[in-house]
């Protein structure tokens, strides 16, 4: 393909075809349809194949981006997905949920003057193609080593470790507290953003490789880490996620109709309450909804509420638009779907009726002061600016903490003062012999790809420990 550089630059970024906002705001089907082969080829042809690709530096797991994109332009889709797999075991997931604008695409050279290459969309394209039409051929596995590994938690971090170590010949069992594997990918991120089918197909792939997945096992309760060692496990990886809801700690928070985002999303996604009464788990369907926070979790909650039939959904956030931590695509999608933003606003108390149901809240306006520890300008309340808003459903999405269930029931595991597990940053080793940890339970709530990166690092270290003894 000998094409002039100028011509390449002229090809605009190929938009992703997606459901119309008016229609999709009332259904749970995935929003973007994915690239067609034609669109993918066009978009791939935009990549300049940089010698020193800055995009790769932006990717936390260093996917060979020009490499896999070149294979797309050559029509070598199977080779292309193989190339991605070298670094990233869950491309169909990452293509959909990575904050690309802050990572790979944010670093793409084209982005300096023009729109960056749609790396995420292309990654998704080849991964979907492989899942739907691929040969299903399994990668080669090393000879059995006779070593047993327990992976606790089946989120992206745990699944990465399981996939890496099974290929290296170890015997791997994943223990999951919930009745379904996948972690946040299944209980948190909604169907319209990440179809559960994709996650199950990834888990199924691991099972075909020989990974055993044991659901309904709350490690720390059903079995302890020391008991796992007694049962003959040689190493344990903890990828249990953050999993502790944070509340606002303001009066009235226990009124009916006030949920943590964890509960709201778990009911809707994992328990399929959006299909009630076909599924048995109920959920409060608000007409007038308030969501607190402005990260991905808040956007997911807001868009879920809209799909469950709300007339009005407001995102209430105490800082300004620039500080919103959600992926740009999610904010954009939320706006298109009619979600309203109440910025520089914080709730001070909830109001309820005599049945204990929430009816509204009192808020106060904020202004931005000096930057705080996170480097973001600190919101300060504006005197005398209190006002009331009505709502019949409120979802609190202001972050998560470290769930102490496992860590507190385990001896010898060093935690920091917020309860997260302390690990060696180069290996993922914890203070307890034979135990590694990674993902949100180490870093606090982060991203799918960082949780996977931590898993990759730990699996390398576990492999060394099992084969070389260090």
């Amino acid at each position, binding site marked *: 393909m000998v094409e002039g550089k100028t011509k390449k630059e002229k090809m605009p970024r190929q938009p992703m075809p997606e459901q119309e906002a008016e229609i999709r705001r009332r259904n749970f089907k995935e929003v973007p349809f994915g690239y067609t082969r034609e669109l993918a080829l066009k978009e791939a042809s935009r990549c300049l194949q940089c010698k020193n690709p800055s995009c790769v530096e932006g990717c936390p797991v260093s996917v060979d981006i020009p490499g896999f994109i070149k294979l797309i332009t050559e029509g070598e889709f199977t080779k292309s997905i193989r190339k991605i797999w070298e670094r990233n075991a869950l491309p169909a997931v990452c293509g959909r949920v990575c904050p690309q604008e802050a990572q790979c695409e944010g670093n793409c050279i084209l982005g300096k003057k023009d729109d960056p290459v749609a790396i995420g969309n292309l990654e998704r394209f080849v991964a979907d193609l492989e899942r739907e039409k691929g040969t299903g051929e399994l990668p080669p596995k090393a000879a059995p080593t006779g070593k047993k590994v327990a992976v606790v938690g089946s989120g992206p971090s745990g699944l990465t470790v399981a996939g890496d170590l099974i290929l290296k010949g170890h015997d791997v069992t994943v223990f999951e*507290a*919930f*009745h379904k594997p996948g972690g946040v990918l299944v209980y948190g991120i909604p169907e319209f953003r990440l179809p559960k089918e994709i996650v199950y197909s990834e888990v199924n792939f691991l099972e075909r490789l020989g990974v055993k997945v044991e*659901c*309904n*096992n*709350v490690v720390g*309760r*059903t*079995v302890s880490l020391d008991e796992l060692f007694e049962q003959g496990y040689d190493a344990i990886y903890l990828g249990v996620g953050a*999993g*502790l*809801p944070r*509340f606002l700690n303001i009066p009235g*928070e*226990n009124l*009916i*109709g006030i*949920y*943590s985002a*964890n*509960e709201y999303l*778990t*009911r809707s996604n994992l*328990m*399929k309450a959006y299909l*009630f*009464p*076909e*599924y*048995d*788990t*109920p959920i*409060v369907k608000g007409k007038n909804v308030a969501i607190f926070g402005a990260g991905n979790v808040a956007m997911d909650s807001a868009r879920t509420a809209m799909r469950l039939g709300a007339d009005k959904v407001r995102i209430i956030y105490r800082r300004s638009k620039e500080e919103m931590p959600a992926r740009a695509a999610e904010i954009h999608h939320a706006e298109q779907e009619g979600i309203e933003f109440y910025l520089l606003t914080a709730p001070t108390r909830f109001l309820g009726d005599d*049945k*204990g149901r929430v009816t509204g809240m009192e808020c106060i306006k904020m202004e931005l002061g000096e930057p705080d520890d996170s480097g973001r300008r600190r919101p300060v309340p504006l005197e005398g600016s209190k006002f009331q808003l009505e709502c019949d459903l409120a979802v609190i999405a202001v972050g998560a903490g470290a*769930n*102490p*269930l496992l860590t507190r029931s385990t001896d010898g595991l060093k935690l920091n003062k917020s309860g997260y597990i302390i690990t060696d940053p180069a290996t993922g080793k914890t203070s307890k012999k034979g135990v590694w940890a990674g993902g949100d339970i180490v870093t606090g709530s982060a991203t799918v790809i960082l949780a996977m990166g931590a898993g990759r690092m730990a699996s390398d270290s576990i492999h060394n420990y099992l084969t070389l003894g260090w």
Partner: protein
Amino acid sequence: MFEILKRQEMADGTVVMNEISAPLIAKKAQPGQFVILKANETGERIPLTMADTDPKKGTITIIYQVVGKSTNLFKSLQVGDHFQDVIGPLGKPTHLEKLGTVICVGGGTGVAVLHPITRGLKQIGNRVIAIIGARTKDLLILEDKMKVASNELHVCTDDGSYGHHGFVTDKLKEVLEKEDVKLVVGIGPVPMMKFVCKVTEEYGVKTLVSLNAIMVDGTGMCGCCRVSIGGKTQFACVDGPEFDGHQVDFNELMQRLDAYKTEEAIAMDKYSCECKAAG
């Protein structure tokens, strides 16, 4: 996996006992702990206390009141059928301590939850006076087992059809008047626990209750089960389910238990229709 090995209907079919194969849970469970069960793919996660366990056989026993859609669905399961998911043991075990004379008060299906605690308290050397009650004689459960588990058993029925005529709280007062009681454990419907706590507060006797807040995960990740204890929010599934009854905001708990009244009625109606259609 979670096969039903034994099944028995009690209290005129309003209460059902299942013995379920769950070896991992049976090995670890202690009095006061519960499991979460899900019958099938579309089912909801329902918390039930383990009324008994047999670590050798690898079984747990649940005893539940048939109230709405899910417990009716559970009731329809026969010996040889399976629960799709059983998760546990969850919650803090009862803190069993030798104190002297203790009273265990149970109402309705609460007696099933109370039974292993009563037995445990007696085993470590307490003198246990048990008071159990039901609306009427036919609804009374586990009388024989409670007799064995305690040193002294009093039975009450609201309508006087059996035992003492009156509420368990009347009997409780009577015993508190006579005895030097170190601890009361009260388990049953929320209004009953509330009144038990009212009585024991007058006598200044520490009282444990077991709170049946609505739950989803049972591992402290969702906050669905939040209860107010001494003005502070706690999660019943991991901080409880047992709490100091004198600190509990029972009114809030009662309201929160009604959160899904409308949906529960819809689910039950749909289930009844389907059952009829299926003959």
